[in-house]
Structures are given as C-alpha cells and as structure tokens.
C-alpha cells in the first residue's frame, strides 16, 4: 500500500514510454486473452488482465496494493562465514565459496522470525479476503551477485518461505529498485544503505544479529516502535539534547496540543493499522494477529500526552503504549517479545539485543550525532551481567 507520504513514484514518468517492450501489441493474436484456471476470476472486458497465479494457487500482489517489505540477504539469513571470506579473501573467492556451497542452506538471521510472522498474517488475510491484494509482500533485495542467487533460492525453499520476488543488484545500489517496488519497509545490515533509503523517504532500519534470541510468538506479529525520531520527528529530541530534560518537559507541556511532525516509520505503522482494521471487520479485534506497541522514554503524565494526541490526530493507534519515563527499555521489551523493535538510538538497540530482543536501528535525526554505545566490556560478557 502506497501510504508513506515520503515516497515518490518518480519512475512513472519514464515508465509511460510505451514502446519499450511494454506495448500491448500481442505476440501472435491481438485478441489473445487469458484463460483463468480459477472460475471466480472474470477478465475485465477490453483489457488483458495479468494473471497472478504463480505457485500452488497462491498469488502475488501488485506492489502498489501490498505492504512491501524488502529484506536483504544478510538480515534474513546468517551469512557471517561468507562475509568473512569476502573480507579476507576478496570477491572472487567469496563468489566461488558461495557457488561451492550452493546446496547448503543458510541459517535464519535476525529478520527471519519477522518474515515468518508476516507470512502467518498473510495466510490469515488470504483466508478472510481471498481476492484481496492487501497483503504483505516480501522481496529479497540484496546487492549480492546473481551467482549467489541459486544458494539464496535453495535456502528459501529449505525454510519454506513464500518469497518469489528478488532483486540481486550485483553491487549497484538497491535504492532505485526499492522505489520501483513501492517499498514500505527496508531492512538491511548495512547502515549506509539504510540511511540512503531514509533520505529517499523509505522507512528503513538496520538489523543486527542478537547474541541470544528469546522465543517470539508464532501466531501473532508483534511490532514495537520507539516514539521520537521513529514514529515522530526528532524535533523534541533536539530540544532535549540541546537544552536538557527540564527544557524538554517544559517544551512538551507548552506544545501539548501541537502535533508532532511525522517520523520515518509513521507510514509503516499506518500500513499495519490498515491491515489490523481488516481483521477487526471480521470480528477479530481481541485476538488480532497483528499487535503494535509504542515503547517510549516519555512519561505518561506529561510529555506522553503530546505523543498520544498526535497519534490520535493522525488516526493511528498502537495496541499498547508504554511510557517508561526514562527507565530502561530492555526489561519491558523482553516481556513484549516483539518480532522487531525500532529505535533511533544504538544505545537502546544494543540494550534490547542484550536481553534477546530483535531490535532494529533507525539512523534518523539528531541522536545520530550523539551516539553512545554500551561499553564493550558489558557486551562481551553477557553471562556476568545483571
């Protein structure tokens, strides 16, 4: 669904050039039409309708109708060994290695549970709305060479994932393709690519492999968001960083009724909300397969009010809103066990990861200039920590 306000469909200008192999001139018979195998599909008169049946009757939605999630191979799967080969022995050896190990599937990476959960939601949506294209569409976007394609597809088969769309750019930037696919969310291990995507108005986050992973739900997709600089803009955070906590509170109280500007992940929350409403319409509000959380350092009684009012004005809501008033987020997230948690500060991302939460970094806003990480000593000895 093309909801993200920052997205532009700049490709359409070039795409109207009808003679680039896309004319409707039929190959043999100008009146050739499809014969759909499914009797319920009626071809629209006068227009040759593209059939979307691919494998086993499951069809793949048009990118502009679906919520398109682009994941890179390094976050969907674990490719640390191969990364090492690339760094130590160069690209020729790396590609040779990949081809030699072509039939060995990769292990699941940090985005794997999230993608599996998306598929669970899709299965339920298809049951309730068999003709609808409002589904999650997962695209594998990697700047790997096509040589690695065989291994990636073998791995997808092995893990039984429903991914049919791929984009292997052989080293070029994938950003243009993200736009062409109407991407609603891009997950990558490369923060530079993520930054580029954010600059183009595409919601994006960097994912890291946590050292330990707690179990997540297999029946309910859970997505958690930080507030400032993720759902909202970083305007308030700027005040905090520049003038301190007191000034921040003052500012928020004064501007309680003024809406915050939107942040990079607002559009994605909106997409989730639209899908949630489809479940509500079929009486599934209480056990909706999608659940969203706001996990913010703001406090409920003061600065949190502005956040809630903003969400309400946008017509959005999260199922749960946790106002931590500055308390550490780790324990709360550990209870929620989201399939993914978005935060703009590496400090929180690492803290969450330490407790086994799958966290993704959104490199947006003023916090990027003030990044401080958890001390290395703490990270290397998780067993001795609190």
């Amino acid at each position: 669904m093309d909801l993200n306000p920052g997205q532009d469909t700049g490709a359409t200008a070039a795409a109207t050039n009808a003679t680039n192999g896309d004319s409707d001139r039929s190959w043999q018979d100008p009146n050739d039409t499809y014969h759909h195998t499914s009797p319920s599909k009626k071809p629209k008169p006068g227009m040759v309708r593209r059939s979307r049946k691919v494998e086993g009757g499951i069809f793949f939605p048009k990118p502009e109708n679906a919520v398109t999630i682009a994941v890179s191979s390094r976050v969907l799967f674990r490719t640390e060994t191969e990364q090492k080969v690339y760094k130590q022995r160069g690209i020729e050896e790396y590609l040779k290695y990949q081809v030699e190990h072509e039939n060995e599937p990769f292990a699941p990476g940090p985005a794997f549970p999230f993608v599996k959960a998306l598929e669970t939601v899709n299965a339920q949506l298809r049951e309730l709305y068999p003709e609808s294209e409002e589904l999650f569409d997962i695209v594998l976007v990697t700047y790997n060479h096509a040589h690695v394609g065989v291994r990636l597809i073998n791995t997808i088969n092995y893990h039984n994932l429903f991914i049919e769309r791929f984009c292997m750019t052989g080293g070029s930037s994938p950003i243009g393709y993200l736009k062409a696919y109407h991407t609603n969310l891009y997950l990558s291990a490369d923060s530079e690519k993520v930054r580029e995507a954010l600059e183009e108005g595409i919601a994006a986050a960097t994912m890291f492999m946590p050292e330990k992973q707690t179990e997540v739900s297999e029946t309910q997709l859970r997505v958690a968001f930080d507030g400032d600089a993720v759902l909202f803009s970083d305007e308030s955070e700027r005040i905090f960083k520049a003038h301190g906590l007191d000034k921040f509170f003052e500012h928020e109280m004064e501007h309680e009724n003024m809406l915050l500007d939107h942040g990079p992940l607002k559009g994605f929350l909106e997409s989730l909300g639209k899908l949630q409403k489809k479940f509500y319409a079929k009486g599934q509000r209480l056990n909706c397969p999608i659940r969203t959380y706001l996990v913010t350092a703001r406090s409920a009684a003061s600065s949190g009010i502005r956040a809630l009012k903003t969400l309400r004005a946008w017509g959005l809501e999260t199922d749960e809103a946790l106002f931590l008033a500055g308390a550490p987020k780790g324990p709360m997230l550990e209870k929620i066990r989201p399939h993914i948690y978005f935060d703009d500060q590496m400090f929180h991302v690492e803290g969450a990861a330490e407790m086994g939460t799958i966290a993704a970094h959104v490199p947006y806003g003023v916090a990027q200039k003030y990044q401080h990480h958890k001390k290395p000593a703490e990270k290397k000895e998780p067993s001795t920590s609190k």
Partner: protein
Amino acid sequence: MDGKIVLNARVQKKDSSQAVVIAVTSSSIFDLEGWQKTVTEEDKQELQPHSAANENKPFKMGAAFPFIMAVQRVNEKLLEMNPEETLLFDVILLSKNGSPEIRSRVEDSVVHYGLDIGRFYFSGDDDFAEPLRSNNVKLFLSTDADDVCKALERGVPAAQLYQQCVQETAGPLRVLFAGDALGLSDDTEHPLREQGFSEAQLQSIAAAKGAMKEFATCMGEMRRRFGRDGSSLLCTCLMMAWSPRDVCVGALKTLRGWGLEVDEAFCLAGAPRSPILAHLQPHILYDHGLQNARNSPAQC
C-alpha cells in the same frame, strides 16, 4: 535498390567469423527526420525541401545512440587489453531506405560521429532477413517492436533496443535477458500454462530458449574477458517476469551452463516491469517479443 552489404572502408575490418556480428537499424541510432521508411513519391515531395536544406548535415542522435556508444567502449577496451582480440562487436547498420540521398547522409553521419560501424546494408524493399542470416548476424536490434517481431518471424534472432530516458555517455553496455523461457524444462512448463498462455505461445517460449543461446554464450565469453569488475563495461542481467523462483534457479543454471554468469538478477513474480526497467535502463532487451503480449497499458 540493391540489398547488398557494403563495407565501410574507414573502419578496420573485423574477422566476422570470430566477432559478435550484430545488425542495428539506422532509425534506432539516428533521428532520420521521417526518412526511415522507403518513401512514396508523395512523401518524397514532402520531405524534399527539408532534405535539400539538410543535405550535407549529419543526422541527429537517435533514441539508441547511447547503445552504440556503449558497444564502442566495449570494443575499445577489449582491444586495449589485447590488440589481437577477435571477439569484438561487428556492427552492420541496416537502413530500409536505400535512396542515394539517404545513403550518403547515413554514411556521412557515421563518419561524423566516429562510429565503429563495419558495414552498411540498405535493404530497400528487399527481404532483409536473408543477407542477415548469410552474414552470420547473431542478433538484430531495433527500437521498433514491429521490426523485432518481423525479424523473429523470419527466423532471425532479434531483440529490442530500449529507449534511453537519459542520454548516458559513460557506463556499461547493459544486456538484459528475459529469462522466463530459460528456466523451463519439460516438467516446469506447467506454471506458465496456468498463467494463461496458449499452446502456440508456449511453443514460441520454448523456441526462444534455443535462439537466445548463441548470443548469451557470446556475451558470457565477452564478459569473462573483463573479469569481476567488468560490470562497469558490460553488465548482464536476468529478469524473470512471472516465473516462480525454481524456474529462476533453472534460468541461472541454464545461463551458467552456456558460460554466462549474469551480474544482476530480478524475479518479479508478476509485478509490472516498467518501473524496474526505467531504473535499470538496459540497452538490449532480449525477451523474444514475449512481453508485448502480456502487459496492458494500464499496468505500465
């Protein structure tokens, strides 16, 4: 008008038994100002005044001019690496209009731009297919989809030249293979049948695979001359428009078997390909005319 192939004496002759011989229409490379087809007497009268005024002027660059520049860069680099190289592009420039005015203007334009075009072929009304076949042309190229279809009908391997949105003066020669035909074996034909293709179309798709082999093999060999970083000079791509991922694996393996390891691969599973193509900007779009039947204007 004799449909003979004429040498361009100003360009060093290539060994056409070793080279990758391609034929390109002059209307793709140049803006022929209305002279592209053999004109009737009435048309001639209309165009004559313009012609007189422009008589000795070279034609302006056409939609596929960046393509011919990219081909030239590949040749130059190959010769740089090995002055004895024989695996080069050998270009035949095909013009349907063989009138003397046009001949000299086309020839002059080629000289003006310094194009590495080895031969001219002014076909006139004659069937252009036979001389192409007898001259070992591996691929016929045009920006005009009609031209491509006619060539394919006459058994000449043909592909479309994509209309470049941006006139790029640097960058690789981009060759895109539409691979839905390539990954098929007898048992995988099934998914395409479900997509609604007729038997006749399925047969064309199967035939397309054989036709692509020769050109793909040449591209593979040429690509290998450049090594890993060669995608800055020659970039090969595979695009699957509808096929499921297993057919994509089949296509990659087929190409690998022919000696072509593509740089980029895209599997669209039914998504419209225009936005991807607009970003990718391939020069050669080798899809055997298949796509023309599938897309309706509303989806571009």
